[in-house]
């Protein structure tokens, strides 16, 4: 199988949500001595970008996006360990979390997927995450982006607590803080001292590419 055929196989697997095809394509890429980052960026990520564009255009919906994301991660599980250490260290790190008190994580998972597809090494802290854990992870892992999500009104203030925690820790100036979720707004982001608020994961990644 040629390089282009392998890359197309990976991309198609993500677009159609075929996990086994993604795993097979990832193994074939490595067997053909393809650079892992090439297989990721020109195969898996290309497919995820197509899905992201279709989602933004309301041509596909959450079930398909989530299936594509799982497919991409299945391929990444095989390809990421094959990235040379020096290359891996050059990837920008980010952390994503749903703030404490909230367990709704679909939005966060989509942002994580798009950040991963955008070349970020994502540390997913999950949902209902204590403020201190988000702050300490940012500092310890030297992340460049902290992406926070919440669906619920009562937990919005947790986002402010994270920003305040980053200020107190002295790490605020080294990181961009992005927030999202239905109750948030650009005005709220400004009010709490976050850098950005977005409604759309792909637009957020595009903003970060310019800002970081």
């Amino acid at each position, binding site marked *: 199988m040629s390089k282009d055929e392998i890359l197309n196989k990976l991309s198609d697997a993500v677009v159609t949500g075929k996990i086994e095809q993604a795993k097979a394509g990832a193994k074939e890429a490595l067997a053909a001595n393809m650079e892992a980052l090439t297989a990721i960026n020109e195969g898996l990520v290309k497919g995820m970008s197509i899905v992201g564009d279709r989602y933004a255009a309301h041509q*596909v919906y959450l079930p398909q996006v989530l299936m594509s994301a799982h497919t991409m991660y299945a391929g990444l599980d095989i390809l990421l360990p094959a990235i040379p250490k020096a290359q891996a260290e050059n990837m920008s790190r980010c952390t994503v979390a749903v703030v404490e008190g909230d367990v709704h994580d679909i939005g966060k*998972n989509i942002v994580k997927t798009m950040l991963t597809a955008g070349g970020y090494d994502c540390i997913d802290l999950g949902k209902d995450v204590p403020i201190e854990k988000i702050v300490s992870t940012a500092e310890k892992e030297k992340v460049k982006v902290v992406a926070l999500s919440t669906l619920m009104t009562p937990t919005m203030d947790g986002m402010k607590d994270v920003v305040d925690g980053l200020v107190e820790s002295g790490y605020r100036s080294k990181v961009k803080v992005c927030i999202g979720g239905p109750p948030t707004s650009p005005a709220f982001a400004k009010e709490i001292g976050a850098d950005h608020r977005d409604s759309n994961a792909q637009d957020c990644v595009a903003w970060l590419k310019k800002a970081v």
Partner: protein
Amino acid sequence: MTEGMTHVERVMAALTNEKADRLPAYPIACGVNRKLLNGGKGVSYRDWCHDPKLFAQAFIEGQKYFDFDFAIGLMDLSVMAGDLGAHVRMDEENTPFVDKHIVNSLEDYEKFVVPDIKKGRSGVLIEGTRIYSQALAGQVITAGFLEGPLLALSQTAGAERMFLDMFTDPSAIHKALKVITEYDAEMVKAFGTTGCNGLCWDYLWANYSCLGDAEYGEFEEPYATKLNKLTGENGMALAIHNCADLPHLDTQIKKFKPAIYSMAYYPLIPGSPSASEVIEKGYADNCLVAGQIDPQLFIRGTVEKISKVTSDLCHEVKTALCKRNLNARYCIASGCEVPPDINTKLENIKAVVDVTKKEGRLN
């Protein structure tokens, strides 16, 4: 202020597109009303949502304090999931939510069983609705509030899990949905005995940010159609609440034909329909549409700010209704529940009602 019509007269006029003195008003104040109990000291969310008398009394006190045009008994969106077996985290002052789902494999969808609706919080909801519906009968239009099957399943199974399984094994999802529809049907019949005038369904996933027409048509529409019919058969008007950013209006208003449709507006989301757009596109022609004040304003806004927003909405709506030759076919409401947060400002809720009484007047 003496008004030209009673609450019931006004809402009935709005529902039938007859002339009314003003637009109806109903900020969706539910859990927040518990702050009015116990002599104004309030009760915890936990106590409120486990005791039918406290649940009902909050709506009764809310009516006295705010002078709404409706009373709609939303408890929270984890009632059915909890009674189906999911673990519900019950903080003292916040909305309860599911923190442990019960679906870990496809086989788990086959284990759903209709619970005894006289027990658990389903029973509290039914009995509480009975108490406030009887207490407020003749004063305002009352309605029960119930989660639709797909919402209840997503709360029980976990939304991400459910969406993935829709893609890989739709038959498993349908097995659970059939059981939850039976559960909903029992609830409808029970609500039908309480004396409430209507039943408000939360069909949350009719949202183009989540599901397309094909998916919604497969996974909720047939079940909702059956339950909507059952609602009417049990003597209740059909109401639907959907706080989605991109709601399926054609399906939920034109096809389901509710008497009332409550919706939100997200100005930052391209395509999210504003109040005037909804009216101009004909969705209020045969339905009383309600919305769309940002619920955040009840916590973060000042009385001045929320009064201005309410006034602007009244004028926007009246202009659009006039263009469409409609009467009071829009209820000034919050786009979603007024946050039941301890920091929610009761004076902001009151301001919405008071401003609507003045600025929502119709000639």
